[in-house]
């Protein structure tokens, strides 16, 4: 079953049409990377499917449940209770981590499971410690975000998303705020998650990483999907000129 099914997603900011009708389906255990130049609309797309932005047109189905569709000239959303359920299916990792600065690392992981999901504190904490262990941050449980490096903060952010037990994870350029050394640290974590069959949608500029970890690569430009398919097709043998030009530019960097 497809965990995510997006059809005909459109979004404008004023006069500027950023998304011109995007289709995407993500199967369980699939890793999808979205590539594209700045301004191609890939981040806006990710924000739309994370429900941080409201699309103007299109339909969005998560785990078989319809969250929104376009009917009679406007977007119709599922009732709030259902939306709440749907939102619990996915997690999002931000480019800037957005950890809660006033909470310790442990509390960043446990606060939402305890207060939003109403799970038992003892159980949540146990799981949180396990997640931190996995991220190599067991000794930072009581530190505060400002005491951590960027790479450590992003690992905490990933752990925070995982603590909610989502069915899929979205990543919005998770390494763009990090220097190369720390980037490698995060890519290692993502690779480990892929090995564990986590379903993921990753907006990224790391071509090499996308090639090695993705089941599917999507190349976006100018608000449309220009090309999509297996990494061996899209990255190694691009059929479209725009894809070729972008990849060439990225290589030169």
């Amino acid at each position, binding site marked *: 079953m497809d965990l995510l099914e997006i059809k005909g997603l459109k979004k404008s900011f004023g006069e500027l049409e950023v998304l011109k009708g995007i289709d995407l389906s993500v199967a369980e255990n699939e890793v999808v990377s979205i590539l594209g130049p700045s301004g191609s609309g890939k981040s806006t797309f990710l924000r739309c499917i994370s429900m941080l932005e409201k699309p103007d047109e299109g339909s969005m189905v998560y785990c078989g449940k319809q969250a929104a569709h376009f009917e009679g000239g406007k977007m119709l959303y599922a009732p709030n209770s259902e939306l709440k359920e749907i*939102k619990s299916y996915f997690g999002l990792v*931000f480019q800037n981590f957005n950890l809660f600065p006033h909470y310790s690392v442990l509390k960043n992981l446990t606060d939402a499971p305890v207060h*939003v999901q109403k799970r038992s504190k003892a159980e949540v904490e146990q799981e949180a410690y396990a997640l931190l262990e996995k991220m190599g941050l067991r000794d930072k449980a009581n530190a*505060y975000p400002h005491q951590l490096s960027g790479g450590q903060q992003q690992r905490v952010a990933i752990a925070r998303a995982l603590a909610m037990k989502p069915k899929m994870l979205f990543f919005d350029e998770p390494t763009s705020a990090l220097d190369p050394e720390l980037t490698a640290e995060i890519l290692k974590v993502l690779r480990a998650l892929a090995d564990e069959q986590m379903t993921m949608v990753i907006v990224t500029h790391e071509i090499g990483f996308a090639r090695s970890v993705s089941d599917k690569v999507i190349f976006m430009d100018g608000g449309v999907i220009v090309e999509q398919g297996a990494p061996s097709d899209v990255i190694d043998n691009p059929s479209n000129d725009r894809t070729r030009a972008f990849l060439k530019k990225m290589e030169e960097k």
Partner: protein
Amino acid sequence: MKQKRVISLFLAAAVGFGVIAGALTSCKDKKEEKRTKLIVGFDAEFPPYGYKNEEGEYVGFDLSLAEEVCKRNGWELVKQPIDWDSKDMELKTGSIDCIWNGFTVTGRESSYTWSTPYVDNSQVTVVLADSGIESLDDLADKVVAVQADSAALAAFESEDATEENKAYAASFKELQQVPNYNTAFLNLESGAVNAICMDYGVAKYEIEARGSKFVMLEKPVSTEQYAVGFLKGNYELRDEVQKTLIEMLDDGTFAQIAKDWELSDSVCLSADDTVLDGSTKKTESFSDKMLRICKQLLKGVGASLLIFALTLIFSLPLGLLIAFGRMSRFKPLSLLMKLYISIVRGTPLMLQLLVVFFGPHFIFGVSTSSEYRFYAVVIGFTLNYAAYFAEIYRSGIQAVPVGQYEAADILGYTRQQRFVRIVFPQMIKNIIPSITNEVITLVKDTSLAFAISYTEMFTLAKQVAAAEATIIPLFVAGVFYYVFNFIVAFVMSAIEKKLEYFR
């Protein structure tokens, strides 16, 4: 850093010395030079003796007399309106040469060097015509207003007060001190006080000006005389003024001026009267005096602390509600709050206190009680500070990055949870420095309660300073505010430190 501090201290000291030295030299110059002007201190709200007329000029019987005296001596007359409570300070520092303003001799014989009395006046009682009050006996358990440091107050409370008047004062519910007669009449009209005791001449003038709503009780509280008061020991100037006054009496000018001001019934200047020079008061050791003054001020300290505490307790939460309203997506509410904040921040707190206190009567016709005075202070301060706090909260909330909201939304927090758990703690950290500023201002602003005659620390200090003719109470008040604010700053910086665990 340290070096910088030393330099700025040094600079401050240098400036301080400069100012003092300058002041001293200018004083010296004044003494050596021949007199060219006479600075007359007066209460600009004391018609018909000295007040501001419809054209905005200072006029009055006393000022006309002073003008004539100056003309005859070739001096320039400087009319200096003063705060009545500060008259002794003004005289001592030389910022005025004399107090010439329906200045009652009775009870103050030993405190000044006096001219001979030129007006015989009595202290009378004014009540509302329909109040049913006919004599001082009817004022038992009623609130009676007198001007702070006035002859009427002295007639009831000073050591020289008659036993009869002391008994009356004891029978009153309260002897309320007000800063000026306009306030007194506003209080009387609104029902906050039941009677005003004041000078006969002023009472006559006020009743004529304000109409038949007010009447004067027949029996005066006391009789008294007015004279010109000079700094104790300043015989030289007193003699010159005295001589000129007698000249004016002899050639009829004095009588004419009295007639012009319709005071012919009250004047009593006579060449035969002896002049009063003031004798030294009984001495009291400095520490005894200090202790006595501190004790007197203690009552006011409680009042100031209460205003401070209640204002914070009410305005901090109210400010948050106003901030929510201001940020509401419901436009009418947001605009209303914006207007509220704009009005409160755009008008003086003193005016707001007056509106809160007198508004119920003059806008809604409700009669206000004496107890309302305290509530009005707390309400006025709360409404004012809530507006400032609201803007501080708003800036503190807006300084929380949008990413925090998005992270909270993705994790499924409700709006309430998002505010309480994520935004509020970060807002608090953002606003602590601004809140500290406001709280420190509030400590000092409590003194504005005097605007509606609520006797807090500073009002009391001014009254005691006036009654004792010393600046010690003001100094003590200053120390009190400083210590209070020192504690406030200490507590706030402790809170700030406590919040340093996150960034």
